[in-house]
């Protein structure tokens, strides 16, 4: 795929100021996509905004119900519509990791709020825009960032693993249901990456064995490009006609 395949593609990325999310902001912006990114902390959003002034930074927390529509409104205000939503923001649950039997219920709820309910809410709020992209000839896509912990029962990864397993299954069901609208939903496991989240989970990991988030971001961008296959271009052409 040449980088111009993603020119003009309208992409929103949650958790866009560190780790894989930040790498995705950089990769997709470099490929010519129009990017809006969301993160919880104003200072982090400012920092990435100054690095990437063409991208739009939005302060918001996907685990908070009240933040979802303000996030959606600002994404749509910045991009004028949406072709790709990447639900990347993730919570580990209790840190340091503990066995499920020692996991506070509130910590499980927090992991579910960020990793399952948040992506569900944000996708729902933006579904109308994704369907509009499909009707106008685009090939809209939702990428839910998953993990091998979604399928393998790693001890001490209970809150995270259970929430990612639920997200993975949600993606599969939704993908079946939304096929008739032309919206695709995929769940992608980017592999073990050298990110702040991984460092929190496994502080003594040998970082040389971990994948660079930039490489994972490139792989995900390739998946998006393969899904688009030129139809995103016809949609953006229509938009140009409409929005000039």
């Amino acid at each position: 795929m040449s980088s111009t395949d993603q020119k003009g593609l309208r992409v929103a990325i949650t958790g866009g100021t560190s780790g894989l999310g930040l790498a995705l902001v950089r990769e997709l912006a470099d490929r010519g996509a129009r990017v809006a990114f969301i993160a919880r902390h104003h200072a982090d959003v400012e920092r990435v905004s100054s690095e990437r002034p063409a991208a739009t930074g939005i302060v918001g927390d996907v685990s908070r119900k009240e933040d979802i529509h303000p996030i959606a409104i600002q994404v749509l205000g910045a991009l004028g519509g949406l072709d790709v939503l990447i639900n990347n923001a993730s919570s580990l649950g209790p840190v340091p990791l503990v066995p499920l039997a020692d996991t506070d219920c509130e910590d499980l709820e927090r992991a579910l709020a960020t990793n399952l309910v948040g992506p569900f809410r944000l996708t729902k709020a933006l579904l109308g825009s994704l369907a509009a992209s499909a009707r106008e000839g685009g090939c809209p896509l939702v990428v839910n960032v998953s993990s091998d912990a979604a399928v393998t029962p790693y001890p001490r990864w209970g809150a995270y693993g259970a929430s990612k397993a639920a997200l993975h299954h949600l993606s599969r069901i939704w993908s079946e249901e939304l096929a008739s609208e032309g919206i695709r939903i995929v769940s992608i496991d980017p592999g073990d990456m050298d990110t702040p989240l991984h460092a929190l989970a496994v502080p003594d990991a040998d970082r040389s064995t971990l994948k660079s988030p930039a490489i994972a971001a490139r792989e995900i961008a390739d998946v998006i490009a393969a899904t688009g296959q030129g139809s995103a271009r016809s949609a953006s052409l229509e938009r140009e006609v409409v929005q000039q």
Partner: protein
Amino acid sequence: MIPASIATQRPRDARLLVIDERGAITHRTRADFQTLVRAGDVVVANDAATLPASLAGIHVPTGGTVEVRLAGRDSLLPRDVSRFTAVVFGSGDFRTPTEHRPSPPFLRAEDELRLGPLRAFVLDVLAHPRLIELRFENPVADIWEGLARHGRPIQYAYVPEPLAIWDTWTRIASLPVAFEAPSAGFILGWDLIDVLRKRGAAFATITHAAGISSTGDAELDRLLPLDEPYNIPASTAALLKACRDRDGRVIAIGTTVVRALEHAARANGTVRSGAGTATQRIGARTRLKCVDAILSGTHEQGTSHFDLLRAFQDDDVLSRMEREADAHGYRTHEFGDSVWLANSRSRRIEHEGDLRSCA
């Protein structure tokens, strides 16, 4: 009619009053809507999401509290959010019926308004002392953030609980450009859209900046609807053309769809795609060029929405509709029951036996 006072978009017991091409009235449930749609029809909805267009704040020259309701804008372009037409109310909020709201301070050009994080100036006072053109001074991204964070959905006293923004978004809500919910679209769910397609109908959308429905001031209400920008995707125009060619019907979900499609319609009933601004009034004397039937909320006489229905059916039929709706306890306003009105002057009646002559 009784106002619907609970913000439920798809109440299970919602009713549907059906008026056919010849003015015959039947009472159905809203779940029956799908059975009125036939293979070959195209169902067109407004996919505008609702802006939190009510902004509480201060009129800086007097220190008086105001509520500014954004009501109009020149285009749907996302970067074009500095200038709005707005209706200004005095102190209080939606809990006071609009007709009892105190007047705002006397407004003049160049007055500053502080609306939460947003700073605005009155550019001009328009055809009424409470109708203004304003300009936000903030950068565009900050205007969007200010609206998203500080704005609240426009609401009326008949719904006592504060609306959340998600109460006002239809299932298909896309670009946030409507000042009030395009509420006829509350009927839509993804399941229903699927059912319509399975019945052989097409589903299409326009995006139309639905304006405010009422101000509580008779003189100001007479200025409604204000000009409303809209966009018709090329894909929608193509579906409408194909529908005309096979002699299907165009079914509009809501008054805003009628206004946009008729504004963009050519004499042969096809529409121009692209951006436009609907400036026309639709009423008893309007000859509809494109739309064959409307699914709408129930509207009361004297409102611009009701006037639009007069293009579909004669006044005596609409009077009967009102009597029937009253007698059968229909609920009105955005969370209320629905009506289906076939266009009694549709080409398919006038040209019976020669339906293709207009296609």
